[in-house]
């Protein structure tokens, strides 16, 4: 499977566990952390989804990291790719990332609190270090040298001082499916040896944004998608008091009967919304819907 094809074809955790020519590092979904005041609740994983896939190293020598957080412009797609490249001794360009995709990525809760690198990157970093250690042990066996004599450059394992002897990550994985459970005690690379992490790298997402290729959530289009607008109550900004949820007097749906494409007027206490087939119809309805609020 081609590198780009994998990103589109492997949609679930199960899909990853069915392909060949791959080393996977997985973990059991951890229990949700205790609730924290002021923070959104953490939704526990569904056991039916199976083990979480943290990392895949493929038989073409590239790697795919998976992380539960999303890149909102903070650059974590780039930074997490650097972390994987660092621990696996791959070139940055050999690493892809899948972020926040609930079908594939591990459940790591909401993307908040500057936690992506300091907390949610930790198991990914460990997974990459563990994968490298496994690959080096395999290479040591094949090449009949102690693992300490091996060096890695861009996924190519070489015997120190003997440039002719070596093996690539991809060769070690051909025709195999290796699944390692995450060992959080795997030693990670000492900071003093970092060559990718700590270096400024161009963000991988900016070009697509500059050419209008990037799909923001606002750009998602689904078949039969409708458009909505919310008519706000008159107490914007205030957030407590008896009047909350009790201020709507009436909604006159006849006031928008002349607008085509209206599919619903939704009223739930003080929540008033209009749903229409086209955005301009929803906007017009939002502006013209006769809503009376209590004084």
């Amino acid at each position: 499977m081609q590198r780009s094809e994998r990103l589109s074809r492997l949609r679930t955790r199960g899909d990853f566990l069915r392909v060949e020519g791959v080393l996977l590092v997985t973990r059991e979904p951890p229990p949700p952390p205790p609730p924290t005041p002021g923070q959104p609740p953490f939704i526990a994983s569904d056991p039916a989804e199976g083990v979480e896939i943290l990392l895949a190293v493929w038989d073409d020598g590239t790697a795919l990291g998976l992380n539960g957080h999303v890149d909102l412009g903070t650059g974590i797609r780039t930074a997490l790719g650097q972390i994987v490249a660092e621990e696996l001794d791959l070139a940055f360009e050999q690493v892809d990332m899948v972020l926040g995709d609930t079908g594939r990525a591990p459940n790591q809760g909401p993307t908040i609190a500057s936690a992506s690198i300091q907390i949610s990157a930790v198991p990914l970093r460990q997974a990459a270090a563990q994968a490298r250690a496994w690959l080096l042990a395999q290479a040591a066996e094949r090449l009949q040298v102690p693992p300490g004599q091996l060096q890695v450059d861009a996924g190519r394992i070489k015997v120190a001082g003997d440039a002719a002897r070596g093996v690539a990550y991809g060769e070690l994985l051909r025709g195999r499916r290796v699944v390692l459970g995450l060992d959080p005690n795997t030693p990670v690379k000492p900071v003093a040896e970092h060559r990718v992490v700590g270096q400024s790298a161009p963000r991988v997402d900016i070009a697509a944004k500059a050419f209008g290729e990037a799909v923001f959530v606002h750009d998602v289009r689904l078949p039969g998608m409708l458009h909505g607008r919310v008519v706000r109550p008159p107490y914007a900004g205030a957030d407590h008091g008896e009047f909350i949820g009790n201020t709507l007097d009436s909604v006159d749906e006849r006031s928008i009967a002349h607008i085509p494409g209206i599919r619903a007027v939704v009223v739930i206490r003080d929540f008033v919304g209009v749903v229409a087939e086209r955005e301009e119809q929803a906007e017009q309805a939002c502006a013209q819907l006769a809503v009376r609020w209590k004084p």
Partner: protein
Amino acid sequence: MAPMVEDGIEITLDVNGAAQRLTVGRSATLLQVLRHDLRLNGPKYGCGLGQCGACTVHVDGVAARACVIPAAQVQGRRITTLEGLGDRARPHPVQGAFIQAQAAQCGYCLNGMIMTTAALLAREPQPSEQAVRDALAGNLCRCGTHVEILAAVVRATAELPCNAPSA
């Protein structure tokens, strides 16, 4: 089911060099037609009030706010979106400069920043910093990337073919 457009009128729009024949509602804005009918993701819906600049397109080469322009009023005008400005094979110098300068955080405002800058440099290839600030004053960036954006405009100015030092 096709969206119902009871009050629809037929129009032809020239978008990125191609004629587009469409039936649109009288209240449809240019932005809504570009995004929903022509499925262009470059121009963004920001405020819907012509105040933030995220929806900026070029109409006959001039930066304009697509969210407050009725689509039916721009028939026969030349409309360019971010997609039509340049692509990876042939990037516009302003797109290249914004990428080089890493002038984005979330990037939602990037369309407006690039389109406004491209229109500015088309009419004023060597603007003063004050002229750049004035031109972009109506383009809001909530992430706060303004310093990088100004650096990107300086870079774009230097890279315009017309500003290249003569051989």
